[in-house]
């Protein structure tokens, strides 16, 4: 059934503005990924050698404390959010078969988002950071992000409401929920913490809920939505079970909102808030097990297809990283474990697995999947793309391992008051060096990713450029497939 002479663009089919707009999201998102990881790499160098010339010591706008927020903000709002929005726009439009309209609005929103981020980055590096995690960008600038998000999401909701008013496929649940939650989480953080400028203990409590919300209620659902498309389509089988999908979706949503206090466990907050956070982090294992069972049965043993099929390969690897991240967060949130790992490198391992791992892998896979379909482009240089995959996987693995072991060493050092603080700083130097190497691998991987996206923009879709990235899975005998 494979049409070897597929002519990609039928006469009369033109590139709509909305397609170009979505491509704009994906391309700028990719650019932000490279910028973000450059900041990240620099930051790890600075942690290793804070006063070395090569780490830009003494340069005010590249000091450790400004490079870190520059990295997290560009990574979360630049790469993950922007690409995620692009992917969501594409998938929601395709799955719900909405018409491809509102190109001007989508493009405007994308431009506003990018401009706000550039301005915000400039402001943070220039010394205007508010010092509040992921709210470092001055509220009047980040209003641009808010405006852009409201434009897109309102449009999607209105379209959805007017044309279809029904949700038939699993990925749509996740994508729509992610978009809704983003507005709510973002508004809560920006308004209560930044605009009303709530001081006192309220500020860190809500801020940490906000940060967790951005990760677990915005980026993770986006990535899960994408995984629910990439995995079934990669193996050409429908999702195994509707019931499991429901458990996974509603369970995840109901629990993740309560997991907000993760980064301030042991902090100055009432015992019940911390206990609820711990319970939520542990309970998240349940929906993730349901997700895992569902994906596992969907793949039905055909994990081998993840070899040649790059989007599938990224999605499957990413999902395993998600399972690892969930178990890790559950494990470290227990007080007896947290008291060792808190404040150490180990705290970052969750970030690594969840954001650099699951979310980034799935989004990279989605870009590999979406771009050819969106613009009729093909992929070149499959070797480079495989190298990119391996660099990213080894980088994330090495980084997480380093953070866990380094965190353990640092944690036991800090927990023993007989060891001088400066001695603890010395013990973890080697781990900081490995971290630098691992993040370097990620940086090069992302660079290769950017390069292959760039290359693909130069080549039309053809049979040759398709098979390099995404050969179609052989169809199984119908007997095995149970479609409702």
């Amino acid at each position, binding site marked *: 059934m494979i049409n070897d002479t597929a002519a990609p663009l039928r006469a009369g089919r033109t590139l709509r503005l909305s397609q170009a707009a979505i491509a704009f999201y994906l391309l700028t998102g990719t650019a932000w990924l490279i910028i973000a990881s450059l900041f990240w790499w620099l930051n790890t160098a*600075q*942690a290793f050698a*804070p*006063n070395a010339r090569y780490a830009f*010591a*003494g340069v*005010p706008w590249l*000091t*450790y*404390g400004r490079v*870190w927020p520059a990295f997290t903000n560009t990574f979360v709002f630049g790469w993950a959010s922007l690409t995620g929005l692009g992917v969501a726009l594409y998938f929601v439009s395709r799955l719900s078969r909405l018409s491809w309209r509102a190109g001007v609005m989508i493009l405007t929103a994308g431009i506003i988002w990018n401009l706000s981020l550039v301005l915000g980055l400039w402001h943070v590096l220039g*010394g205007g950071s508010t*010092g509040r995690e992921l709210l470092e960008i001055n509220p009047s600038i980040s209003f641009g992000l808010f405006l852009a998000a409201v434009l897109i999401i309102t449009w999607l909701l209105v379209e*959805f*409401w007017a044309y279809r*008013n*029904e*949700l*038939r496929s699993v990925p749509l*649940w996740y994508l*729509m929920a992610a978009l*809704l*939650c983003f507005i*709510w989480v973002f508004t*809560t953080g920006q308004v209560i913490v930044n605009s009303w*400028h709530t*001081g*006192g*203990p*309220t*500020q*860190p*409590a*809500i801020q940490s*809920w906000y940060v967790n919300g951005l990760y677990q*209620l915005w980026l993770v659902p986006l990535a899960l939505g994408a995984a629910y498309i990439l995995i079934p389509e990669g193996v050409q089988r429908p999702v195994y079970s*509707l019931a499991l999908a429901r458990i996974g979706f509603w369970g995840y*949503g*109901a629990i*993740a*909102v309560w997991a*907000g206090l993760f980064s*301030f466990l*042991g*902090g*100055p907050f*009432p015992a019940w808030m911390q206990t609820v956070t711990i319970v939520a982090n542990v309970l998240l294992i349940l929906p993730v097990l349901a997700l895992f069972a569902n994906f596992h049965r969907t793949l039905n043993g055909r994990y081998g297809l993840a070899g040649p099929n790059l989007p599938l390969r990224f999605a499957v690897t990413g999902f395993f990283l998600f399972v690892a991240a969930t178990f890790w967060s559950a494990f470290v949130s227990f*007080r007896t474990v*947290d*008291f060792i790992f*808190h*404040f*150490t490198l180990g*705290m970052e391992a969750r970030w690594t697995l969840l954001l650099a791992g699951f979310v980034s892998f799935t989004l990279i896979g989605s870009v590999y999947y979406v771009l050819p379909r969106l613009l009729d482009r093909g992929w070149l240089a499959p070797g480079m793309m495989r190298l990119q995959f391996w660099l990213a996987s080894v980088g994330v693995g090495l980084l997480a391992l380093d953070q866990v072991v380094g965190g353990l060493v640092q944690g036991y050092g*800090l927990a023993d*008051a007989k060891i001088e*603080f*400066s001695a603890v*700083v*010395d013990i973890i130097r080697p781990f900081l060096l490995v971290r630098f190497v691992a993040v370097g691998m990620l940086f090069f991987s992302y660079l290769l990713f950017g390069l292959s996206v760039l290359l693909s923009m130069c080549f039309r879709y053809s049979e040759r450029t398709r098979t390099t990235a995404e050969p179609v899975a052989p169809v199984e005998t119908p007997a095995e497939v149970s479609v409702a």
Partner: protein
Amino acid sequence: MKRFTPYLLGVLGLFLLGWLGMVYYPYMAFAELRPDRDSTTNEVTPPGLPGTAVQGFRVYAANGCVECHSQYVRDKNEGADIDRKWGNRRTVARDYMNDGDVFLGSSRLGPDLTNVGARQKDAAWYYKLLYRPTSLNAESGMPAYPWLFIKRKIAGQPSADALQLAGEDAPPPGWEVVPNNDARELVGYLRALNRTYPLPEAPEPKE
């Protein structure tokens, strides 16, 4: 799951529940915090911060000190914070009620600063640390902040708060290094960081 409306209500409802519990409730509960007035000594805790300290928040935020320094002391059986003399008791919500910005932080690449003002009172020491951390500890893990200082030719008398630097760090003869306004505010803030006063809900742990 076919229709959109019940789905929408479901998502929003679940979200609202968590939001009420983890955002709205703490927001209301913390708004009710009042300072503690000791009925025998009339001591009010926590005391407010002095004006210069409030200005220092901004400099602390802008330079991202929070990325390496935490500002909370954990319970005695949840860490060695108290054994490390970073505090005499755990900190609780009320400790932060007067602060316009709260930099709890989640990394301890550097030591905890909850009570740094109680440990180090000498402004000159802070200036030296910020200008050249390596002058206090050759292997220091703390970055230098030279842009908080002005290097200038001595006109007439040397300034009273010029930094006492030796060796490589010293400015050329006839020159001096003085803290600028940002540095003064920042050090004012750091020296005001002192939460060793008593609070009834956080008794000092017994040995």
